[in-house]
Structures are given as C-alpha cells and as structure tokens.
C-alpha cells in the first residue's frame, strides 16, 4: 500500500500513539521525562495525596538546576555547603526527598554530571532521537536538536506523565523553516535563531511544531542544533526539530544511558528512517536566506525585538501596528534606549555566558576564542561564565578555557540556570545592562529592572572586551 510522504514530526507522533479518541485527541506515550526542582514539587505532592506511584521511574531523570547557587558547593573539607535562601533550599530538599521516594534516578548538586536538564539529557544519552521527551520547562524544545520530539509542560502535565507515562495531546500543525545558502563567516547558530524569531515573531509558531531544514543545519554541529531548537519556544512553537544524522549518532554513542549492542544498531536503523520524506507537506513554510543573517542582538523586551549589530534602535513609528508601537515605546523606556541610537554604541555593565541555550563546550570555546589574551573592559562590573554541566566544566578545564576566562577577568562558576532567570543569587542589578547568551529578554527576567541584550557567546565575549555591544568580527576573523 502506498503511503503518503510524512514529516519527521508525523513519523515520531505516529510511533507514539497509544490510542486516538473520537474527539481527535491522542494519548501519546512519553519516552523520557526530565524533572527539576521548580516545577515538580506540586506534582509529587498530588501523587502522594492520591496514593499514586510513578508509572515508569526508569524513564524519569531528576536534576536540580534552576535554584542552585553557582558558587562553590563543597567546603574545603568536602562537606556540602547549605543554600542560604530558605525557599530555594526547601525546593531542592523536596526534590531530594521525592526522587528516592518514587524510585527516580537523581543527579544531585555535587554530582560530577549535574547541570541544566537540557544539557544533561543529551549528554547522558538519556535524550534520544525519535523519542518523545518532556520536562516542566519550556526550553525542553532544545532536545529537538538531536531529532527528539521534545516540549515543555506545566506541573499538572508533569503529574500526568509521572502517573501515566502519557499525555493527552492534539496533533500540532507543522511549519518548515528552510534556511537556504550558507552562513557567512562568524555567524553562529544563536544569530540564526534570533534572526528567525525576528522574522516569524514570538507568536509565529503558536500551534506548530517547527522543523528546521536546509544545508545550514546539516553542516551545523549537534551543540548548534540544540541552541537553535532550544529557542523554538521564543518563536511560539512548543517544539522544534532537526532530522537526526550521523553527527547526532556519533555524539550519542557510548554515553551512559545511550543504547548499546544490537539495541544501538536497531536504534540507528530506525533513526535513519525518520527524516522527512521527499514531497511531504508542511502546513506553513518560511524561507530564510542565510546570507541575510548578521551577528544579531536584541534591543527590546521581547525575543522578536532583534536587529543586526550594525543597525540602530528602531523608532516606534516604524511599526505599522499601533499596539506594537506602544509596546516598542514601553520596551525602549524600560531598556533606556533612544530611537536612532547605534546598537554598537550601547554600553553594558554585565556579561552572562551560560543557560540551556548557550552553555555547552562549543559555546565556551567560541567565547574563549574571543577572550584569549584580552581582558574585560573597565566598565564591565560583573561577568560570569556558567557551564551547562559538571561534565562541560571538566572538559573546559581540561582545555584550559577556565584559565582564559579568569585571565580575562571573568568569573568561572558551577553549573546551573543562573542569571538566565535569576532564581538563584546571580542577578543583574536594576537599570544595568547585560550582554547575555540566554533566551529571554523579558522585563525583569535577569532580576528586577535588569536590561537584557540577547547575543551569541562570541558576541557576549566581544561585549566583555569592549564594554559595549560589539560586532565580534571586528575583534577576530
């Protein structure tokens, strides 16, 4: 029987349907569930109250990341240091109690493998291509970079997955973001995804799963793909996908929870069959010319507020929509920027290199390449590098990157979410700017009153050196 050509999304979806109901919703099996300390306590509490067990603790992995301080976690004698903030400590304590109580593997704050869940999942081989992966965190979309259908869920859904290992879902529409041509020298995956969000807008992907297609993604490293898919949610899409290929298989092979032996061979065979079939139809298609992408920065308080580093701050009147004009006025007032001001003249006082978007080894290497032999500018008061996991940290130290950062006047920290959302002590002071490799420039995201400019790791490093937003190509290359 001839079958209609299918997209990557449809193939993964079809392989996970437990049953489809008369109303069109489907019960979808969840292969991997990552749990962190912020969005899980209420879910475990509900299970406990109802006397319900976790159906598949073996498909669940718990890692604290959001609240953890990024300062030393052990004292000189090797004893674990307490967390000063009592609420953060209580959240961590809840996870440390819930994980063993429900039989879930737990990677704690002093474990060498601890890190941001979205860095740890692929790194441990827990996240796999073609798998359905969820976590109570919207940046779960990141795992789409290895070809998994991965998306963020709320706490009620965390409870639902813990109890049933399924979710009741409606099939999403599909959107193709096709990037043609090649990226110009010095242009990174972060520049690309910021540019894409600028084109489609923060609601452009609502109701869709995005598949990123084209030679740019085939040439891109696995780390770069994770960065791109990570920010799908900033474009409104709950999930983003890139077809898995040999780069992904090489990346995963031999990792602690990756399949082995004949399981591995069978897995690779299936993974190879997942790519979108020729002629498959998408509900929406957007084409972007890679040559149009410049080093990109945000100037406002929405991730769609992007511009090339060579541009000026836009005027509210340059937008047709009156409500967007008003939003831009509010953004510029919050950001302390004037229309017409050159972005490359904007001075910054803080630099944050980290987050689930940009804290993998390749990101740290890119930042270190700019900082090597240089020093942060005098007006940069606070600059921290937060590796995505303990394993990334160890790798960076083996390569001497930590020394490059500290020699340049940056602080080298312990892994966690850190100043991306400032739930731990790492915050940007009110009224100050931060060149940040994170994913959201929302009002107050990096601390009350903090002004965030989203950039790539290389651009953050360049800003640290010059003390202002800077085209990194002026420093290197």
């Amino acid at each position, binding site marked *: 029987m001839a079958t209609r050509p299918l997209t990557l999304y449809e193939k993964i979806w079809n392989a996970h349907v*437990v049953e489809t109901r008369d109303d069109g919703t489907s019960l979808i099996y969840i292969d991997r569930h990552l749990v962190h300390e912020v969005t899980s306590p209420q879910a475990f509490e509900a299970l406990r109250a109802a006397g319900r067990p976790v159906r598949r603790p073996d498909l669940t992995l718990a890692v604290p990341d*959001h*609240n953890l301080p990024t300062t030393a976690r052990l004292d000189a004698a090797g004893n674990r240091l307490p967390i000063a903030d009592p609420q953060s400590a209580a959240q961590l304590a809840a996870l440390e109690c819930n994980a063993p109580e429900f039989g879930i593997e737990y990677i704690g704050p002093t474990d060498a493998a601890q890190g941001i869940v979205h860095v740890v999942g692929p790194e441990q081989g827990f996240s796999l291509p073609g798998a359905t992966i969820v976590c109570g965190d919207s940046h779960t979309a990141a795992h789409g970079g290895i070809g998994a259908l991965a998306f963020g869920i*709320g706490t009620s*859904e965390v409870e639902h997955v813990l109890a049933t290992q399924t979710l*009741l879902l409606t099939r999403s529409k599909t959107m193709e973001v096709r990037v043609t041509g090649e990226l110009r020298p010095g242009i990174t995956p972060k520049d690309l995804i910021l540019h894409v969000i600028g084109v489609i807008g923060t*609601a452009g992907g609502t109701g869709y799963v995005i598949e990123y297609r084209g030679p740019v993604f085939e040439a891109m490293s696995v780390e770069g793909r994770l960065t791109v898919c990570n920010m799908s*949610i900033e474009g409104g899409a709950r999930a983003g996908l890139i077809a898995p290929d040999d780069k992904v298989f090489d990346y995963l092979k031999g990792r602690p929870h990756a399949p082995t032996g004949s399981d591995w061979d069978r897995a690779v065979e299936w993974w190879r069959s997942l790519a979108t079939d020729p002629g498959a139809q998408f509900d929406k298609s957007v084409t972007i010319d890679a040559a149009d992408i410049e080093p990109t920065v945000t100037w406002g308080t929405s991730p769609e507020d992007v511009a090339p580093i060579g541009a000026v701050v836009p005027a509210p009147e340059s937008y047709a929509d009156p409500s967007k004009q008003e939003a831009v006025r509010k953004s510029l007032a919050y950001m302390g920027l004037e229309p017409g001001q050159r972005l490359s003249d904007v001075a910054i006082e803080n630099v944050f290199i980290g987050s689930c978007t940009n804290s993998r080894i390749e990101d740290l290497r890119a930042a270190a390449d700019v900082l090597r032999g240089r020093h942060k500018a005098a007006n940069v008061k606070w600059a921290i590098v937060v590796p995505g996991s303990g394993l990334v940290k160890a790798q960076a130290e083996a390569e001497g990157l930590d020394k490059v950062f500290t020699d340049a006047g940056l602080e080298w920290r312990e892994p966690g979410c850190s100043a991306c959302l400032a739930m731990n002590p790492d915050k940007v002071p009110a009224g100050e700017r931060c060149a940040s490799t994170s994913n959201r420039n*929302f009002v107050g995201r990096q601390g009350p009153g903090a002004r965030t400019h989203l950039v790539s790791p290389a651009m953050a490093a360049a800003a640290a050196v010059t003390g202002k937003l800077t085209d990194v190509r002026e420093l290197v290359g």
Partner: protein
Amino acid sequence: MEPVDSVEGRAIPFGRKNVDTDVIIPAHWLKTITREGLGAGAFETVRAEPGNVFDDPEFANAPILIAGDNFGCGSSREHAAWALLDLGIKAVIAPSFSDIFSGNAFKNGILTVALPQEQVDRLLEVAASDPVTIDLENQVVTTPFQDRFTFEIDPFRKHCLMEGLDEVGLTLARDTAIDTYEKRQASDMPWLAHGTERAA
C-alpha cells in the same frame, strides 16, 4: 476540579499584547512548593505602574481578565495559572494564547476564550463600566448591551471543564491500552524501553 459552566462579572480591561509568563508571575515567586499564595506576586511589574488596572478598586475580585494577542507566551510555569486563580480570575479573554499557557489554564479550570481582535476591543470598552458573561455550554460571550460573541473550544476540554474531571484519573482508566503500547514498544523499539536502567 470544580465544574465550570459559566463565568460572569467584572472583567479587568488589561488589553496588553504578548503578556509573557514573567509578567504574570516573576521567577522569584516560583520558589514555592505549594500552589497557593501566588496572587501577591501576580503582575508585579505591571502593578508597579501608577494607575494600573489591577489595583483599580473598580476591578477588585473581577473574575475575568481581558488581554491582547499571545497571552501567556514564554515559560511553561503553571505558577502563571495558579497566580491568576489566586487573584480570583476564572477566565481570560484574548485574541490568542500561547499553547502551553492555555493547557495549564485548562488544567486548573481557567477558561481561555479566544475572540477576534475587534470583539476583544469591544469587550475592553464594555468592561470599563459593565460586566461580561461567558456561557461555556453555549460557547458565547455576552454583555448587557446585546453583544453576543461565539467562541470555539476543544470538545474534550469543554467536557472536562463542565464535569470537573480529573484528567490523571481518566487516563489511569486507560491502563490496559498503555500496557499494550509498552509491550509493543519493548519488542519493536527496545532501546526506548530502557531509560536509566540498561538492559542486562
């Protein structure tokens, strides 16, 4: 969950577009291990603005919130829904919602009603002085001025909301189907069946 069949009363005419989850409830409020008490942090940055609608006594205890496009974009934090509930908000009307937020709202019995921008504009106008009624059974929003705006809602969500159903309980009743799927997967895709425990 309490069954919902209608929501009526004053509506907070917020109207703003792209209201993200950090605006609904800033991250420093997420360090709780319960679902209660988040109303105190709801819209913290908006409430710092003089003359904001949330602190206008006219809208005290209003059960409806009216917002602009793409309400609830950003994070998956269900704390956003809990914060609205804690404020006494039982329904949000907007031209569109982020996917994750509308799911979280639904799971907490909050109705999300998507209407075209011009109808939302009309409701913002009415809300300044008069109440709004959302009739879930008939899928219609009405005002004292003969406005009558119908809306779409997923039939399953409508059913759950009107009956106050526990979705986890409903799915647990499908245990046999899940067992069957797991057996098939263990045979067809064994690498997926081994998560943190490796096959011997």
